[in-house]
């Protein structure tokens, strides 16, 4: 009966090999990139000092706050609206596509494919593609965020439905309830907390991403960030970044509070 011992020894060896492989991949890639690990790391504090000196908001940049604030609100609104619309679309599609509630396995595979397609095109690529059709406008940003978020949420919602609602669904089906009764009385109430939790998470993410998209579409906080940056007003850029960080943190705290209440 030496097999468990052999198994553990093998497992140990495997772990060593894995660590060695990761180490050599790192070494190889830094060699390819001409990336000198040591001087790379020592440069980090220097970079931060430079940042601290040049990007510190001054009294002048404080005067810009109302304008920054207005643009920030626009950006948050963009993130929230695109996420909410995406969530509604994703919920419908996920119900049609999930293994538990869906039409059939073909639809399931197709929906998974579509979701993965939307999810795996980088946000920046979406924005740049959409710029051709919709020019620089809030709508372009809205659509780019929407499409990517739909991709994420469809997959998340399908998995939530399959994990959390299958058992109660079966119980209601057994009482003779019809399909729509089962969806409304069992599936939706059962998955609601996880669903809201995901939507909040996507809103947090999309506020950050909306900033990035704004640089491309020339809207919201991204636009003035870009503007200040290109006109070398680094103190104003610092102010903008600070404002973004504060809003993101506030949103995170807020959504954690909401989660605590609903879960």
């Amino acid at each position: 009966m030496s097999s468990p011992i052999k198994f553990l020894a093998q497992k140990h060896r495997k772990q060593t090999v894995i660590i060695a492989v990761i180490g050599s991949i790192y070494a190889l890639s830094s060699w390819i990139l001409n990336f000198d690990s040591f001087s790379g790391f020592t440069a980090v504090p220097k970079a931060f000092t430079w940042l601290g000196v040049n990007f510190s908001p001054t009294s002048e940049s404080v005067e810009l706050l109302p304008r920054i604030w207005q643009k920030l609100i626009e950006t948050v609104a963009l993130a929230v609206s695109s996420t909410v619309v995406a969530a509604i679309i994703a919920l419908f599609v996920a119900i049609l596509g999930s293994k538990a509630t869906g039409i059939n396995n073909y639809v399931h595979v197709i929906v998974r494919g579509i979701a993965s397609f939307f999810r795996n095109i980088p946000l920046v690529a979406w924005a740049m593609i959409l710029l051709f059709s919709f020019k620089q406008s809030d709508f372009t940003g809205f659509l780019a965020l929407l499409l990517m978020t739909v991709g994420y949420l469809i997959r998340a919602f399908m998995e939530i439905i399959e994990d959390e609602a299958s058992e109660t669904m079966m119980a209601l089906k057994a009482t003779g309830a019809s399909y729509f009764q089962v969806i409304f009385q069992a599936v939706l109430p059962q998955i609601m907390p996880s669903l809201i939790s995901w939507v909040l998470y996507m809103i947090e993410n999309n506020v950050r991403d909306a900033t990035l998209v704004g640089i491309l579409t020339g809207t919201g906080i991204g636009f003035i960030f870009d503007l200040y940056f290109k006109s070398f007003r680094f103190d104003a850029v610092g102010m903008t970044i600070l404002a973004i960080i504060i809003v993101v943190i506030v949103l995170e705290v807020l959504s954690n509070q909401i989660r605590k209440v609903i879960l």
Partner: protein
Amino acid sequence: MLEVKHLTKSYQKDKPALTDISFSVEPGNFLAIIGPSGAGKTTILRSLNQLIKDDDGQILLDGSDIRSDNKSQLRKHRRQIGMVFQNYNLVERLTVIENVLHGRLGYKSTLAGMFGIYSEEEKKEALELLDKVGLKDFALQRCSELSGGQKQRVGIARSLIQHPKVILCDEPIASLDPASSHTVMHLLKQLTIEFNIICVANLHQINLAKKYADRIVGIRQGKLVFDEESSMLSEEILETLYDQSISKELE
């Protein structure tokens, strides 16, 4: 009366999960199905309300075959068959009374059911049934806040409000401690007699099956091995089911 005739099912080709299962139960009777893990007990039970589509045979409820139902006939049959699950399968986020009222969905129009609109009589009956299963004061509590035994009693109330001819229980006490197990089994037995229902339960506890069931059916590798009055069940018969002595279990 519930009659099962020559029920057959295989999930994969040449690997029969059920072969030629036949038995019948009269109203007011409690039938226990026992057998080792993977024998096919769940498959039988879920075939009885067609949650699983079996391959061949007949399932007659008062003479009409559930297997040949179209969609709306199946819905009418299903509402006469309550089901109680090992994991209770309640909507945890909803209140106790909402979960009980779910048992009425099969009788409602799609729209009324979707939005959970119930009549006064239905609500009153839900409260009476909660009283009957000993949960009178829990009506407005969220199901997630109940103990396992309490959840199972909500599940039983949900099936009773269907006015069922049959209640199917798939290991109703497998997740419960001994005391709650007895409460639940006692309740099922008592309701079977009081409402003149057919109760079919998959059980792993042979002593409880003997104590509460009127008849016991043994399943092994998809085949019916015995069908006995529970008082007649002997050690020799049980050995044919499990391949080992289980006299300890019987004590």
